[in-house]
């Protein structure tokens, strides 16, 4: 059945700079903000924007992500017509087909999926940004200009612009040039990895790109420049809400701290823009006799008897008496034994911190280069052990000096 728009969510990224957190799981499935996974943000944006047909392109370590997505019910995307579909690379007769070679190839391989809905527009979304964004606003700009493509951009400083894909625009916000990480930026409009295309146009460029053996089959490197060179109308959509690419440990930590602010742009208590997620089946949490909890999130199934400051505590976490957790992110199932100290750290799922152990150390809260300690899924830190600031501990690299 025909849909006005279909969203394609790129969720196959490995997230190599988050290594200890993405060893066995795709980056979009990394827990975030106490109750969520990163992918809940673009998925909630789709649903809240009225987009009810979403293809999730998976590739790297998809098991946990696919289990999490299930039939799409938590996002109200279990639909008879449309809904959520997980799209893995596949092969054709005669051993044709391949892994997704690049972002554009991932969409190319799923032209058939999109064609089922005969859409006017296709949103191509990054599965690893934290943002609350109404895609309808971008679509308005797209339609008003009769554009072939509209690219969401964020205004950054000229210094930051050197790290982004930068859109150089005319006075009417139409794009004349795209530069990836320019040494001398001409503009401060950074691409957010959120695109709106007129499907008939994009379809044509995807097919042409696939036929070019020298192409990297990437949106930024190939599709966008090709469309520009052909003289297509391409617009920027200036987004002024919250957006963060959580590609590094520090940006992931920052975004977690940002979501703690109940009055901030990323507030989880915003009734106008609810965040949907698959919830674990756990009872309410218990705060016990010795606990002191301030400026923190505590989630279901937790048992808290220690001190918690400035931290995100996901579900099923136990923090013993006399333990201190400060400026840290604890993912589901973490246990912090009595007397342990965790500061400026990210502890992945099911991590156990032994009694009296000390993880991380005091940092300057606003320092962009602060050292956040990271402990990978399921690791146990021995009682009394010390893990220094900025250390990254994962199964092949046991750590913690006595």
């Amino acid at each position, binding site marked *: 059945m025909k849909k006005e728009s279909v969203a394609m969510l790129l969720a196959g990224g490995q997230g190599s700079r988050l290594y200890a957190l993405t060893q066995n799981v795709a980056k979009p499935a990394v827990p975030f903000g106490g109750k969520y996974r990163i992918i809940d943000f673009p998925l909630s944006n789709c649903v809240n924007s009225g987009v009810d047909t979403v293809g999730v392109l998976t590739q790297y370590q998809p098991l946990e992500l696919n289990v999490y997505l299930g039939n799409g019910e938590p996002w109200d995307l279990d639909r008879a017509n449309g809904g959520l579909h997980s799209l893995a690379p596949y092969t054709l007769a005669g051993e044709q087909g391949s892994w997704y070679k690049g972002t554009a190839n991932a969409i190319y391989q799923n032209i058939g999926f999109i064609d089922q809905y005969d859409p006017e527009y296709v949103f191509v979304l990054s599965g690893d940004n934290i943002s609350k964004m109404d895609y309808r606003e971008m679509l308005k700009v797209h339609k008003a200009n009769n554009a072939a493509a509209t690219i969401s951009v964020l205004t950054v400083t000229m210094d930051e612009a050197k790290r982004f894909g930068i859109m150089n625009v005319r006075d009417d916000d139409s794009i004349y040039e795209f530069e990836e990480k320019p040494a001398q930026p001409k503009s401060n409009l950074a691409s957010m990895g959120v695109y709106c295309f007129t499907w008939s146009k994009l379809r044509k460029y995807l097919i042409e790109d696939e036929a070019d053996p020298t192409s990297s089959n990437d949106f930024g490197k190939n599709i966008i420049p090709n469309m520009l060179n052909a003289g297509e109308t391409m617009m920027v959509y200036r987004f002024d809400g919250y957006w963060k690419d959580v590609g590094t440990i520090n940006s992931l930590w920052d975004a977690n701290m940002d979501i703690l602010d109940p009055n901030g742009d990323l507030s989880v208590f915003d009734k106008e823009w609810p965040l949907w997620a698959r919830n674990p089946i756990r*009872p309410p949490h218990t705060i016990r006799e010795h606990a002191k909890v301030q400026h923190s999130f505590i989630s279901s199934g937790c048992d808290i008897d220690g001190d918690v400051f400035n931290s995100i505590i996901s579900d099923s976490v136990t923090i013993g008496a006399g333990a201190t957790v400060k400026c840290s992110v604890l993912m589901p199932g973490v246990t912090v034994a009595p007397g342990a100290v965790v500061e400026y750290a990210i502890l992945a799922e099911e991590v156990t911190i032994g009694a009296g152990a000390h993880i991380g150390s005091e940092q300057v809260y606003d320092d962009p280069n602060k050292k956040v300690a990271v402990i990978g899924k399921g690791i146990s830190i021995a009682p009394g052990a010390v893990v220094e600031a900025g250390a990254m501990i994962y199964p092949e690299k046991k750590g913690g000096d006595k």
Partner: protein
Amino acid sequence: MLTNLHAIIFTNQKSYNLGELTDFRSMSSVPYGGRYRLIDFMLSNCANAGVSNVALVLQENYQSLLDHVESGKDWDLARKKGGLRLLPPFSQKAGARDPRGRMESLINLGNYVHEIKQDYVLLADGDLVANIDLEKVFAAHIESGADVTPIVSTSYHGQPLATNYFVPMEDGTMDVLHNPDDAQGYEALNVYIMSKQFLSDTVKYCKSHNLYSLVNHVLLPRRNEIKIVPYIFEGYAARFTSVSDYFKDSMEIMKKEVIADLFTIERPVFSKDRTDASTYYAPTSSVKNSVVADGCIIEGTVENSIIFRNVKIGKGAVVKNCILMKDTEVGENSIISFIIADKGSTMTPNTSLAASKLYPLILAKNSTI
């Protein structure tokens, strides 16, 4: 997997007095434990044992319960085959009185009981808080060859005047006591397993003899011919027959052993799914000895309390020994103790409200103080 068992849950026990809490909802949909309705426990017991045919016998005030269970999907009971069945009074004559007992409720269902396809039936009240492994109970029922297996508790002590007891006699039979003055023997949790044939015959017998009570009219007078073998449940159990019971027993959930017993990883307690954020504790908050659900914003002081979802407690507010249900708002600098605030209650700033442990005060749904 108890695929050969059909569960029938009675949702509105009328002999109890929970005051305003049951003015507009059935007993089974009374909120409990920060995020549950009482029915969640029996539905989860069924779901966790693979019982996929579950009927809810509805009676009066059942809108709240229907809102809660919806299609049954949160208990995995939205099925093509079997699943959750909602049974409003069916063959009750217009103007007829409320059913006087379980048997009359079943008689009112017309042919439902007689057409059950499974060989065994579980009859249970929907107000029991307990995490019961029904597969074990069923195995005991088969092994003992009993006609009726009541689940009984040795640890729970409800009010005798609202309780049935099974007392083993020297000759091997079971004495049955209905609401006696004093507790004796095993305390019934009002959950029974029996064969479908036994139930069907019993319903027919009761209908033709104008009898209505399972305990009084069936088990008690026929105790010498019916083989009754209780199953002793050793876990935590609670039923609420008065407001003070409800208050006192609800608070037990703070005990580690109670929470561990009720909420196991192997047999989770499912409830209506709502995506709530984590609870936010502001820099001004101070919370101790409390059970708190998701989605709350806490800026004040909370002690010895149960806080349901999406509750807001303002700066300078002090909440002690309270049960605050979903969407309650406690305004800044309000001081409250021994209050049971039903859904959506609002305490405006600087309110002072205190009751006592024996007589906690109920604020009716959506009330503003």
